[in-house]
């Protein structure tokens, strides 16, 4: 037990100390965004990785949470601390709505319908310009404030710790999920749907719960994101956010607790480093994604295992890869 806690403790300890080591606001900005992505992608991993449902509306949930937070706290003057609950609420409700058609669908159809849902939201945001700011985005969202402490002060350090706290909660929740009967049922449905139903698992209820649970994370992250960058833009429904998040997930490894987190952090740093390449960075990114998928099908979190396999085989003195 104590040993299993060493890695998480080191990980969060190091992250908690990061602001003490550097006060470069650029580094901090990247860190905040990366942490928020880690939360979003971890949430996605619940439906996509553990649940085996290709929910491509996940990033739309993130965007919906950002818009909901923005609109309620700016247009309707709700206090800024309601942002996270509002984001979670909006995201969960939206997730339940997307889940309904998905109950009947499979495979690529799920991808397309959920993606279609995102597009529908996108169209809605464009069309309701009065409410959402149309394609220019919704701007000047009030920043997060608690007891007169504006999280914008001190170079956004408050946001950093909020994001870190969110990630910590995420890890704890997902860890409990994976080791709970609910989590096993979700995985059982992924493994074999008819068999799961034949063993008394209520498909609709479990799936709806899965969606609702996974929606908590983009909901919270979307709210903080909106309050941090102080805007929500319709691009958030588009392909670019989606592919960024999907790359993170696949890069880190689907269906593991730490995979998406590692993926999000590594990918964020990587894509920032690539910015100077201009459009060329897309080429590099695309190549890297495909290469990772090709050589580490389980993502970065599968590397230790792949390494072990390789070592074992090297020891055994076999040279041929025995893949069928």
């Amino acid at each position, binding site marked *: 037990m104590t040993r299993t806690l060493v890695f998480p403790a080191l990980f969060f300890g190091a992250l908690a100390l990061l602001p003490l080591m550097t006060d470069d606001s650029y580094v901090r900005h*990247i860190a905040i965004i990366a942490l928020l992505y880690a939360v979003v992608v971890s949430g996605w991993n619940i439906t996509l990785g553990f649940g085996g449902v290709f929910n491509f509306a996940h990033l739309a949930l993130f965007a919906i949470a950002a818009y909901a937070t923005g609109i309620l706290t700016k247009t309707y003057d709700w206090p800024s601390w309601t942002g996270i609950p509002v984001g979670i609420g909006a995201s969960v409700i939206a997730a339940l709505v997307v889940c309904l058609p998905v109950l009947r669908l499979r495979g690529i159809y799920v991808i397309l319908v959920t993606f279609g849902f995102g597009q529908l939201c996108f169209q809605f945001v464009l069309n309701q310009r009065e409410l959402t700011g149309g394609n*220019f*985005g*919704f701007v000047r969202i009030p920043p997060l404030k608690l007891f007169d402490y504006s999280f914008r002060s001190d170079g956004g350090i408050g946001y950093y710790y909020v994001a870190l706290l969110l990630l910590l909660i995420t890890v704890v929740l997902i860890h409990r999920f994976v080791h709970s009967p609910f989590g096993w049922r979700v995985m059982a449905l992924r493994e074999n749907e008819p068999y799961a139903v034949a063993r008394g698992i209520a498909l609709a209820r479990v799936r709806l719960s899965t969606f609702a649970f996974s929606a908590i994370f983009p909901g919270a992250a979307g709210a903080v994101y909106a309050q941090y960058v102080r805007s*929500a*833009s319709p691009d958030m429904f588009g392909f670019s956010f989606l592919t960024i998040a999907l790359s993170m997930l696949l890069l880190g490894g689907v269906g593991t607790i730490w995979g998406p987190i590692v993926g999000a952090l590594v990918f964020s740093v990587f894509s920032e480093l690539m*910015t100077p390449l*201009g459009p060329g960075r897309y080429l590099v990114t695309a190549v890297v994604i495909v290469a990772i998928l090709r050589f580490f099908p389980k993502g970065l979190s599968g590397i230790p295992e792949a390494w072990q396999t390789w070592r074992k085989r090297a020891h055994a003195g076999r040279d041929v890869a025995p893949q069928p």
Partner: protein
Amino acid sequence: EGYNGAALAAKEINAAGGIDGFMFEVEKFDTKEMTPDAVLSAVERLKATDNLGAIVTPFGSLSGFEMDYVAEIGVPYMVAANSNQYRSIITEDPEFYKNTWSLAPSYDAYQTELPKVVNQMIESGSFAPENKTYAIIGSDNPYSMPIYEGLKKAMDADGWEMTFDDVVPPVEINDWRVMLSKIRENPPAVIINTEASSSNAAAFMNQFMEDPTDSLLFIQYAPSVPEFVDLTKENSTGVLYNMLGGPISAKVSDRTKEIGEKYAAEYGYDSSIYGYICYEMVYLYADLLKEVGDPSDYDAINATLAETDKEMVHGRVKFDPETHLSIQGDGYLPIQFYQIWEGDRVTIYPPVYATGDSRTPPWMAN
């Protein structure tokens, strides 16, 4: 192109020995997909840049939300588009945004001037409408919508009657036929399209010309983009458009001619408006620096910037202290109306800058 323009200006200034020993360096900060966090990353990287003197850009984001961040840095920030958005934010607290100044004027004139120009054409005989009807198409984005609404009001006030009204979403539109055929059912004297995307507008132009009606065609702004003519070729002859804050025609302005030639010589193709403006921004900054002497004294530079009164490629620039936009109108930045004729852009309004007369579009020559 904005970057190219700025780089060209910096190169010239450096070649001339710089300003008070300061050499200029232009660095590009990519906002990637313009997602909020990417724009913010660009700002953060800017912040971390040593010896940052000023930021020049056509516009930092569609929504203008980056201004808050730039305001915190305090560095002089010059933009040249998206005025409505910037204005709406700045007027809330002009003092807070004291470093942000727009070389583009307010877009209000887009809403009002068209009836005057049409009347001028009627007077000059180049347009003889059978009746006073018009069709209008709006494009649903925060830039075009006020113009669309304003134009409707202005036309109605001038006694025009609307026969068709529709709004298109801010996406790629390739098929205007259904809309055009509705317009053709009842041909109006004037067709107004406020579509801001040049390729959408070009598609509209081409499809209109498949079966043109006896109507004057006015497309707001989009035809000013060079590729509009490439894409429509001879189809575009006769179309009207207007532009605020655009360079004054090279035929009447030496400055425009000079920059345009330099730019073409350097990069091998003609610049769009942003190449000109960013070029001018760098020169404007050079003036400020000369006066203040210390590039790190942002407050002084901003204060001087606020006092700017300078004749530029697009007219006389002086800022409105309320909105931080350039003042528009008589003596300041003009609104210009153009008519495309065989690929040439003829300024037909205002008379002072006109390079030619308006003519009856070829499709309605009979």
